[in-house]
């Protein structure tokens, strides 16, 4: 940790950064997001596997505009989010100082290409517990699945915390805020809630970098990450495109292959 603090401190003292987004110890020992503007604050800086919040979500905050150069301590999800944001023209190469810690060593990424390589070499396998949960739901009958989701989604209060926590939900006007026409029912009825979660899943299909922040942020404990996870798996297996691994656009839903396979078109 001292290596990380020393390095970050040097970035401050040499004037390379004037804001560093990292983590400090949270209430249960996990990392919570922390913003450092002076090197003497850095004694609180930590990084370990319990630092799970995706810090890329903060980059869109207008409050950060006043900082000339921002450093960010990126966990794996953050790195993928940064790549996807670059592919979507939201950040540029070299805009941020990007660090991570791997095997106890501080890594500074020279550019997005370096992140691409790092991500490619370290892509994790899907969490087996999640897969098992998904499988369990998928093995239910059609009616049971409908019932399961109707019940789960009825808890949704439409706080949109899932959206706020997602580093890729950066639209200035979310679809749910379009009211001419009103695409998604705003009242949290069963219908409006289903529509919202369909829209959220579809908008993240091919873009979701699987950081799990949406579900973590859900105050109602809805397993909504399963929806995006399922669509991601569909996209990877059908089209071979893995979101958040490339700095150039490679979006499954704006590309196609002439021989894309399906079995339901008559």
């Amino acid at each position, binding site marked *: 940790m001292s290596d990380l603090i020393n390095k970050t401190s040097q970035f401050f003292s040499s004037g390379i950064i004037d804001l560093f987004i990292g983590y400090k110890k949270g209430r249960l020992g996990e990392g919570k997001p922390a913003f450092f503007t002076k090197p003497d604050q850095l004694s609180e800086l930590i990084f370990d596997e319990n630092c799970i919040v995706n810090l890329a979500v903060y980059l869109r905050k207008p409050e950060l505009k006043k900082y000339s150069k921002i450093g960010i301590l990126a966990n794996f999800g953050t790195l993928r989010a940064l790549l996807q944001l670059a592919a979507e023209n939201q950040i540029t190469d070299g805009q941020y100082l990007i660090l991570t810690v791997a095997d106890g060593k501080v890594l500074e990424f020279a550019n997005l290409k370096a992140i691409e390589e790092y991500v490619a070499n370290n892509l994790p396998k899907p969490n087996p517990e999640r897969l098992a949960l998904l499988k369990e739901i998928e093995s239910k009958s059609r009616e049971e699945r409908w019932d399961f989701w109707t019940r789960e989604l009825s808890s949704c*209060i439409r706080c949109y915390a899932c959206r706020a926590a997602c580093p890729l939900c950066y639209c200035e006007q979310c679809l749910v805020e379009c009211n001419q026409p009103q695409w998604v029912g705003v009242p949290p009825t069963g219908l409006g809630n289903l529509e919202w979660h369909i829209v959220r899943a579809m908008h993240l299909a091919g873009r979701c970098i699987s950081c799990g922040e949406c579900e*973590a*942020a859900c105050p109602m404990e809805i397993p909504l990450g399963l929806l995006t996870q399922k669509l991601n798996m569909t996209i990877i297996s059908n089209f071979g495109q893995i979101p958040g691994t490339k700095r150039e656009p490679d979006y499954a839903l704006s590309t196609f292959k002439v021989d894309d396979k399906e079995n339901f078109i008559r």
Partner: protein
Amino acid sequence: MEYKLIKLEKIQEFINSLIATGKQVLAPKQKKEKVFFSLIHSFEEIAMDYIQTAFSAKSAVFPKCEELYTFEKNGKETILNNPQAPENDTIVFGMRPCDGAAFDYLATFFLKENPDYHFKMRYDNTIFVGLTCSSGDEFCFCSSVGISPSDTRGSDLMLTKTENGYYVEIITEKGKKLVEQFANFFEQIEQIDKTKYVANIQKRFDSSALKEKISGAFDWERWEETSLPCFGCGTCAFSCPTCTCFDIQDEANLLGGTRYRIWDTCALGIFTKHASGHNPREKQSERWRNRILHKFLYTDEQFGILSCVGCGRCIRNCPAELSIIEQVNAITEG
């Protein structure tokens, strides 16, 4: 004031009888890691052992999705239908004293000047059964905002767990009626000293120091810095027992439709966004400031009460672990 005792083994029967007589019982229920107020169908569903629910029970009187009225076209005419009051009473069972105080606040907010038809309809039909806190956690701070963990404000009945069962204080007529209706579950008892059953909630901040600073805090220069971790999820407001902001939404087709009142939050950018596109609260720090000032200044100015009851939900639920306690202390320290 009258006092009763309900034995531990009787409480189950009591609840089940409430349900059997058609009352809607809203009580704490476990879901995964959290406890929520939920409509229950039998006593077994109730989670009795909890420090605080994830959300308050405000949905009993302020549902997340409430019909204001329905409308339909009949030829050239448009017919409006107001909703009717629920036929049966609702029992909010097992809410903490801070939530009781919050219902007191809600009643002030909705009923003081222009009584809100829909709120009143539900409020009048709801019986609030409070439950004294026997323990608290580091996020509880009711004592800092003038509420005690055994406060009876806002409750119709107040329960305190003792060795012999639940000690019942009958606070209101409504509460008394309920006890009378189900008299066989209750035993007569003398007033007892609750102190030893009540949690000790430490003061987390100095409310008088805060009061001094807060009126000038709008221009405080640290709002941005202290709110940086907030990414605007709004969970604080949704889970807050006193947050009352709502949005009005119509759902309609060519034949008719419904006007709904739904929860809203000042944490969202669109909350204050004008039709012109201008947004007076452009940044999250401004929205965060609004929430803090609303809790500790604006309602004080308007109604003479703080709209923070120290339940600690906003801290427990915050994905970025922002703390209203730390925030208030920062303001007090300047």
